[in-house]
Every structure is written in structure tokens, then in C-alpha cells.
């Protein structure tokens, strides 16, 4: 007994160590790639700071001060140390430290992606279940087409059309942006998630306004995760519905609704959690184009604005942050899968 328990704990430690190695190498790889991008860039970082009229000795001194004379591996070590402590340099565009800027814009992106994923999951899962249960029917075909179009449509184009229809023609939603200019100076957010803040402070008119701003971009992002989630739900459910326990449940005389929602979906839920987590990560990425169209003051708009002004510190800082969240969510969904599914637990 004792020996077996020791073997089990050793296995757990080995798994934890392996997990740490994966996290560390992936993150190191992320930094290596951004470092490489920062170095192959044709824009000289010194000239970006000083402009091209600076005298030669100033250029030389600045180059030294920025550590660009050191061997490449030393530069990389310094780069990693700075990045790990959250120092991505100064944004040329806003003259703030990049990290300060990102901290300011990040909640906006998170809020958008969260609402988008909620919409996608709340509609996508039932659609997927419906398609699986009524396999081959007209409903299944419709869900399939909705998903295929979601995979095929350029998001920024759909966003433009949605603005044209729902804002300009129908006037159902508010204009691009996050909050009306009237509330911009009277409303003081705490968490940066405006919906939560407005609810917390019981400012119902602000809440209504924030909702009118977020609903269109979040629905668009939600459509994209819906396409993915409904497709995966369908295939997981088809897989579950073929299992023997479903036959047993039917033989026991359970109602069809109970079999589908309480038995099959419950087992399909384990891989679904992974899918929803991954689609959340995908929305963080999809927000780059959506935010540009909706002038949503988040990380995506920050990155594209910086790109257009050749502000490489900001671009690379934003890339590292999105990459880190991506890696984090990937690993988290992996962990979740392992804890939720008893079959994958280490014996």
C-alpha cells in the first residue's frame, strides 16, 4: 500500500514538473520570437527614439544606453528579464510605459471577449445539441450552414455591415466606442469591466448605455465562437449518443429530454469546456479586427494603432500579452480537462 502511494505521488510530481517545463519553454519561445521580430525590424530603434537628425555621437551614446552594442545573447537575457518583470519599454506614441497602457486597455478587451463567449456558448451549445439529436434533418443542415458561414465570413466586413444596418439605418445600438461621451467623465469605473461597474454602482442609465455599446461587437464575436462551439458540440454529442449507457437509459424508460440534457450532454461537457476555453482565446485574437471597426478602446485597437505608427515596443508588448493569455488559457483548459474527466486522472 505504502509503496503504491509513494509511486503515485512520484508520478504526480513528475507530471507537475513536466507541466512546468512545458510552460517555461513555451513562454521562452514566445519571448524568443518577439525578440527576433524586434531585431529584424528595418526601423532602427535608436532612430525611432531620436529621429534621423540626431548627431552621430548622440546616436552612439543612446545605442550604448539601450544596450544595443552588447552581444545578441546578452541582449536576449536582458530582454527576457525585463519582459518577465512586465517592462516592455516606453510607447513612442503615448510616451507611457507600454505596460501602463496595456493595463488601461486590457479590461475592455476582456469584457468584450467574455460577453462574446457567453453569447457563443449559450446559443452554440443548444444549437449543436439540436443538430446532433435531429441528425440529417433540416435543422441539422441549417446549423451546419450557420457554422460554415461563420467560418468563412471576414469579421471586419460583417462588422461594417452590422454597423450600417443596426446603427445607421435601424438605430438600435449606439455608435462605435465603449460608452457615451456624456457618461465618460461622470462614470468612474473600478474594475474596468463597465457592465460590472455600472451594475455595482447601480447607475442604470450607464448600464443601459454600456449595454447598447457592447451588444453589437460582442454579438459578432459571439457568432464566431458560436460557429466553432456548435460544430464541436454536435460531434461530441453524436459520439455520446452512440454509447451503450444511452441505450440503457432508454431501456430504463427515461424521458428523451432527460437522456439528452442530463446524461449525454453531461458527458459531452468535459471536452466542451476545453472548446469553450479555446474559443475564448480565439476571441481575444478576433478582437483585433473587431475593435478596429468599432473603435473599441481595447488591446486590439491599441496594437493596430501602434502598428500604423511604427511603435514597435507597444506592438511587441501587446503581442506578448495576448500570447501569454493564449498560452495560459491553453494550459488551463488542459488542466481542466484532466481534473474534470476521471479517466485521464493519473492512477
Amino acid at each position: 500500500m505504502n509503496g503504491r502511494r509513494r509511486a503515485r505521488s512520484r508520478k504526480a510530481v513528475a507530471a507537475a514538473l513536466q507541466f512546468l517545463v512545458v510552460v517555461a519553454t513555451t513562454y521562452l519561445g514566445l519571448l524568443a520570437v518577439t525578440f527576433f521580430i524586434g531585431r529584424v525590424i528595418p526601423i532602427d530603434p535608436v532612430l525611432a527614439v531620436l529621429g534621423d537628425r540626431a548627431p552621430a555621437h548622440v546616436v552612439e551614446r543612446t545605442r550604448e544606453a539601450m544596450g544595443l552594442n552588447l552581444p545578441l545573447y546578452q541582449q536576449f537575457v536582458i530582454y527576457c528579464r525585463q519582459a518577465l518583470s512586465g517592462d516592455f519599454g516606453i510607447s513612442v506614441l503615448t510616451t507611457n510605459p507600454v505596460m501602463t497602457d496595456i493595463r488601461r486597455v486590457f479590461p475592455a478587451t476582456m469584457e468584450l471577449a467574455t460577453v462574446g463567449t457567453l453569447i457563443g456558448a449559450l446559443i452554440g451549445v443548444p444549437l449543436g445539441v439540436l443538430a446532433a439529436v435531429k441528425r440529417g434533418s433540416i435543422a441539422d443542415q441549417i446549423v451546419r450552414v450557420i457554422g460554415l458561414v461563420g467560418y468563412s465570413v471576414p469579421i471586419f466586413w460583417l462588422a461594417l455591415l452590422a454597423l450600417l444596418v443596426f446603427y445607421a439605418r435601424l438605430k438600435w445600438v449606439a455608435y462605435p466606442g465603449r460608452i457615451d461621451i456624456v457618461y465618460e467623465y461622470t462614470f468612474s469605473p473600478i474594475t474596468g469591466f463597465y457592465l460590472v461597474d455600472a451594475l455595482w454602482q447601480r447607475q442604470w442609465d450607464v448600464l443601459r448605455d454600456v449595454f447598447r455599446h457592447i451588444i453589437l461587437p460582442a454579438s459578432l464575436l459571439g457568432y464566431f465562437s458560436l460557429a466553432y462551439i456548435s460544430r464541436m458540440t454536435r460531434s461530441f454529442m453524436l459520439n455520446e449518443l452512440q454509447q451503450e449507457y444511452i441505450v440503457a437509459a432508454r431501456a430504463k424508460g427515461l424521458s428523451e429530454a432527460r437522456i439528452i440534457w442530463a446524461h449525454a450532454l453531461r458527458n459531452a461537457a468535459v471536452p466542451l469546456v476545453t472548446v469553450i476555453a479555446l474559443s475564448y482565446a480565439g476571441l481575444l485574437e478576433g478582437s483585433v479586427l473587431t475593435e478596429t471597426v468599432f473603435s473599441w478602446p481595447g488591446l486590439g485597437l491599441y496594437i493596430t494603432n501602434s502598428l500604423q505608427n511604427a511603435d514597435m515596443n507597444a506592438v511587441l508588448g501587446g503581442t506578448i500579452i495576448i500570447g501569454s493569455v493564449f498560452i495560459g488559457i491553453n494550459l488551463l483548459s488542459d488542466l481542466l480537462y484532466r481534473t474534470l474527466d476521471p479517466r485521464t486522472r493519473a492512477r
Partner: protein
Amino acid sequence: MSLATETRPMTRREWLLSDRPQSRLQARLGRAYMTWRRFSANRLAVLGLLILLGLVFVAAFADLLAPHSPVIGNLASARLLPPGSEGYLLGADDQGRDILSRLIHGSRLTLAVVVLVAIIAAPVGLIVGAVAGYAGGWIDAILMRITDIFLAFPKLVLALAFVAALGPGIENAVIAIAITSWPPYARIARAETLTVRNSDYIAAVRLMGASPARIVFRHVIPMCMSSLIVRVTLDMAGIILTAAGLGFLGLGAQPPLPEWGAMIASGRRFILDQWWVATMPGIAILIVSLGFNLLGDGLRDAFDPRESGQ
């Protein structure tokens, strides 16, 4: 069994479906025929194939098909003409250029991006995956770690950062997209390699003294091709969307090139009053990437009926 049926000459169909092929050619044609039968039974997949054949046709004969020049407009009389105007079926943009002609010429750019990314990324992924899977050990560990690192990246953001570093332009967009799209191919090639590496025919080839390189290139990689082709086809839609996204942000093809994403960006200013300038290129993108998705789905079902969930 009567004598008559035995001596009756085989029909072409029977020859193809024979379970005792007399030659390698017959076996291959037979397999291809069965795959085609499965594929063509799926009407949506055939529709996808037709869309893509149409794209290739339009791109090949763009000069003949386009009624106007894609880059030189008629500012005097055609500026922002609505769709359906005489000679301007889909309307004209702010430079007085015929949108239909620009879409027709833009199909060449779309096709070029897709083909270039595929011929850069697919072989890289294939070789990395096949080598990793066949060699095993530390080579496998290192190659797959690198693959995982690239897989962990958000594709569009990484492509953005690359284009930001290399400078805007359609060539750099192709390079950036290729860099971000090879890892899934490596994963697939490795998985396929692992299933065949211990099979008898590989052991037989090895016994005959074939070198590892010969085994990988002649005997392992061909086995990976069908799953790879399916995956590449399914990825094409994503590649088109990424390229269009880069174009929309002004980082892909530069004006006056009639790239569809960039056309949407330039129509954005007129979206409220002249909606067609931004709408038409989006429809073109949607149709083409839908075509790739339909074709990819159909190919997957035809090559591997197990995975289709049908």
C-alpha cells in the same frame, strides 16, 4: 455461374471497382474512382469545387473578363456610381474604378496568396512532422516543442507582428501567414507517421537496406498526404481571411492593387452612403472561403468516412 457472364468483357466501372486489380495503375484509378464517388455524392462539396474552379477560371482570364481597367478609373463620370449602372454592374469606387473589374483582377491576388502559403507551409510542416515521428527520441521532442510553441501563438497577432517588422506588402503578408500556419501540418504528419512507422511494410523496406531519408520521403510522407491535403484545404479559408484582414489593416497588398481586404478598407469611409464599395469585396471573400470550406469538408468525408460524423 454461367459461362456467358465469365467471358463478357468488363465494363469500365467493373474494371475500376475490381477487388483484384491487375496493375498498380488499375488499383490507383480504382481508389480514386471510389473517392470521387463518395465526394460527388456530397452536393455541397461539389458546389465548393465549382466555386474554386470558377475562381481559377476568373483569375486565368481576368484580362479578358474584366470590362474596365482595375487601376485606372474614370473620375469624370463614373465616381461612386451605384450598382447596376450602365457598364458598371457592381458600381464604381471613389476613384471611378469599376468594382467588378477590380474583383476579377483581385482573384489573382487571392489565389496567389493561397497557393504561395500552401507551397511554403505544407512541405515544411510535412517534413518536420514526418522526421519527428519517424526519428523519435530527442529529435521528436525538440521538433515538437518548437511546433507547440508556434501553435500556442495567436495566428493573426503573430502575423501582424511579423508584417510590422518586415514592412507592409503582399509578399511579407504571405511570409508572415506561412510562418504561422505550418505547425498544424507538422502535428498531422507526425500523427500519421506514428501510425505507419511500426507497420510491416516499413520494416520490409528497412530490411532491404533503405536509408532513413528514403524511408521518410518515399514511404512515410506519401501516407500523410491525404490528411494533409484535407487540412490544407480547410485552412485555405482561414488563410484568405487572415490575408484579407492584413489588407484591411493596410498591412497586406498596397494600393492600387485590387486586393479584396484592402478594397473593403477603402470603402469603409463611404459605408453609410455608398454601401456597395465595401460590401462587394466582402461578398467575394465570403464566397471563395466558403468554397474552400465546403470542398475541405467534402474531401474529409471522402478520404476518411470515419471522422465525418455522418
